[in-house]
Structures are given as structure tokens and as C-alpha cells.
């Protein structure tokens, strides 16, 4: 006589749920990063800039702020800072951003945004460049730049 056997034995179930937890941990990890990155522009910039607009500028899909003014995005050299920005604001990962830029660099000669070294350099650049947009730690913001996204 045939006896039916559960497809998942208790020990297999345990192993699978442990794997599931590990998987969740891996997937959730980027969100555990410090989330105090803010997006800054020149104080004279009055464009209404939401997250999708920021994404389009940093992924090379658009070269203008909403409203049509030319934009100059600046990146950060630090993998930690850019990684946090990609996760929090662009809602993607640095690897995906790199893939998107690889396509654009090798098919049309587009250049990714210039990467500056550190928050101070980004604040300095944005405070002196009317069409600039960058990201820094909230603590490094001065009154010479305007925070458009916390």
C-alpha cells in the first residue's frame, strides 16, 4: 500500500525557512544603511524636483530640470555615499546604475556625472554652480546650498 509522505519534511522546512531569513537579510541589507543623505542644489534653483526627476538626471535620461533649465549632476567618489544615494533616492543599486551607464557610455559617448571627493567638495561645487545638483550627508549642509530632498 502506498503511504503519502508530506513533500516538505519538518527538517527541510526548517532549513528552507532559515534560508529564507538569510535571503531576506541579504535583500534588506541596503536599506539598513544610514539614511541621512540629502539632495542639494544652488539656492537660486526654483525647479520642483522630485525623486523621479533626480533619477533621470543621475541616470543620464535627461539633462534638464523639470521646467527645462540645464542641469549638471555631480556624483561622489565614495562608494558608501553613492551607494546610499542610489538605494535611498534612485531606489536601485550601484551595480544597476553602473550597468545603465555602461550602455550609455559605449553607445553614444555619454559621460556619467563627474565624481567629487567628499561632502565638502560637493557643497563647494553646488554652492558656486547655479545648475548643479548633488548629494551629501545632512550634517555637511551649509546655508550656501538648498536642500530639496531629505
Amino acid at each position: 500500500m502506498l503511504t503519502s509522505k508530506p513533500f516538505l519534511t519538518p527538517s527541510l522546512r526548517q532549513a528552507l525557512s532559515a534560508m529564507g531569513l538569510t535571503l531576506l537579510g541579504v535583500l534588506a541589507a541596503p536599506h539598513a544603511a544610514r539614511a541621512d543623505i540629502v539632495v542639494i542644489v544652488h539656492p537660486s534653483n526654483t525647479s520642483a524636483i522630485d525623486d523621479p526627476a533626480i533619477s533621470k538626471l543621475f541616470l543620464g535620461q535627461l539633462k534638464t530640470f523639470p521646467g527645462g533649465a540645464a542641469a549638471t549632476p555631480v556624483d561622489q567618489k565614495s562608494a558608501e555615499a553613492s551607494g546610499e544615494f542610489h538605494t535611498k533616492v534612485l531606489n536601485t543599486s550601484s551595480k544597476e546604475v553602473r550597468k545603465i551607464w555602461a550602455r550609455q557610455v559605449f553607445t553614444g559617448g555619454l559621460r556619467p556625472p563627474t565624481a567629487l571627493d567628499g561632502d565638502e567638495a560637493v557643497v563647494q561645487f553646488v554652492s558656486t554652480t547655479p545648475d548643479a545638483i548633488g548629494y551629501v550627508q545632512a550634517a555637511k549642509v551649509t546655508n550656501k546650498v538648498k536642500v530639496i530632498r531629505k
Partner: protein
Amino acid sequence: MRSMLMLGLLGLSAHAMAGEFTYSGFATVAVGKVLGGSNNAPLNTHFDCPCYIADYGQGAVYEREWSLGQESKVGVQGTYKFTPSLSATGQVVARGVDGGKADVEWAFLSYEASPNWTLQAGRKRLPMYFFSDFQDVGYAYNWVRPPIDLYGWEIVNYNGVNATYRGDWGGWSAKSNLFTGREDSKKNRYSKIYVDNAQDVTWKGIMGADLELTRNWLTLRFNYITSKVQQWDHTDGSRVTPDPSSDKTAERQDIYGVAMNIDYNNWLIRSEYSVFDRSGYSYRSRAFMVSTGYRVGDFIPSVTYSRYGEHNSHSPDIQRDEGLALTVRYDINDTSDIKVQFDRFRDRSTYDFVGNAKQITVSYDTVF
């Protein structure tokens, strides 16, 4: 001629006093072999089956022995900015399948007329399908190669002019490219798969447009290309297309299709449908592919199904095939990856083409 142009571009950049020169590159090292297949006969005089066509455009075909040469390549690109809005870009790619000879894939002048419009003139890759113009940059996609049931024609590049538009259409990023030009391919590599004798192929009067729309997790692309086609036997110069009995000087073809990509949380979907219409003198083919992947940490496993089929009122010989690919991509770091791909190719052609095949390929891709 092409290398002269390239030298010219590089020379310009080396000697100019003002401006800015930047370079970058990419490389793929791929090794693969056919595990088994249904055909045990040579494919023309060039290949020995069982075999697997990995890249029609470059004439890359795997046989039973492990091969490093079919899809390995290295590309270097330099861009020189004369002014913030005027630049020159050159890209040279050396391929194992071509004995490492460097081909100029891209060489163009680019002028940013406005933040929305860029005008370019020179040599480019022909953007026939979504992945066509960056097919060499393995790092930028998740397969070892885009599905061959779509990505396989005799012309890969063109010389001409194009205008690219980028804009925001009610929250959609829109990118559109209008282009025109021609390409003369001597001893065409694709033709090695079909014909013993070397062939010269010309696509002239190429006119095309594409439109890519992106919003959040969705990307759509529509494209249309039309051109005149001519083909000659390279050895004796006799005309192949149009048929020698025809009083036409060239035949016409139309290529159009749509692609839809989704990047939703960790899900990745790539899909494409395309029509290649040469029904005025030969076949009309339809092809599609659907690929689903899921990102798990640094791994992206994916499954891809693709199909190609012809209708031909001029000949009973019809090529039909389908492919199934299982791929795992592992991201080593932000600039390199390793992929393992198993392909099952089914040949359902009405004539003796290449036969079924099972193929394994391992590749390493990097950008620098």
C-alpha cells in the same frame, strides 16, 4: 580607411591643446562548447556540427571542442571634448573570432545642439534591437549573449548621421533616435553561416527611428528601419541580390519591433518582438523572446525563451528555431561579473540547417 579615421581621431586628441580626453573600455572572456546535437555533418565548408551559432553578425559558432575565441573580445573607447558641446568618440573592438584584428565599431563627431538634441555623424552600431548597439558590452546585460533568435543579421554597423532627442513627456523619459546611412560589408561574417563563398553585402538608404520610454520600473522601445539590400559573391563578383534575372538594382527590407523591460524590486523581465520583412524577394520573419530573472544578493538567475520563424512565398526552404537559456550572473564587484549559461537550441527548419544543439558557456565581463 577605417583605421585611418581612427588614427585621425586619436591624433586630434593627442595634439589638441585645449579640451579633455577620456577613455574607457570593456572586455569579455568567454569559453564554451557544444555538449551534443542532432547534426553530425559540416555546416558549409566553415564549421563542423554538432554546432551552436552564438553570434550571427560576427560569425561566431561553437563546435564540440572548448573554444575561447568565439565570443571573447576587448573594446577601448576614447572621447575627446573640443568644447563642452562638441566631441569626437572612437571605439575599437578586437575579437577572438576575427583573429584579434581590431574593428572600428564606433567613430563619430557629436554635437549637443541643446539639452534635448544631440547631432552625430560618423560610424555607429545599427540599433536594430534593444541590445544591438551594446551587444559587445556583456557587463551591461545579464546573459552571456542576447538571444540569437533575434540578434542575428549580416549588418552590424552603419556610416551616417543621426539625431538623438531626450525629453520628459509627462513623467516618462523619452529618448528617440533618427538615423540614416549605409554599410558595405566585404567578406561578410554572417554569410559564412549560410554560404560557402565569401559574400559582399550592402545595406544602403538605411533610414530608421526608435523611441524609448522609461517610467519607474518600466521601459518600452519601438523601432523601425528600412533599407535597400544588395549582395554579391565576393569571389567572382556575380550578383546574388537582387536575383541576377531581376531588373531591379536593389531589394527593399523593413525591420520593426517592440521591446518591453521591467525592473520591479528584484524581478527583471526582458522581452522583445520583431518582424524582419524581405517578402518582396525572400522571407518575412517574426521573432520574439521573453526572459525572467530574479536578483538574489549578487546573483541573478534567469530563464529565457526565444523563437524565430520565417514565411517565404519564394522558396520552400524555411528557417525556424527556438531557444531556451538558463543563465546565472554573479556580480564579482561593481565592474565585473561571471556568467554561466546553458542553451538548448531546437532547429525546426524545413531544410537541413544546423540541427539541434546543447551548449554550455562561461564568461567573465568587465568594464574599465
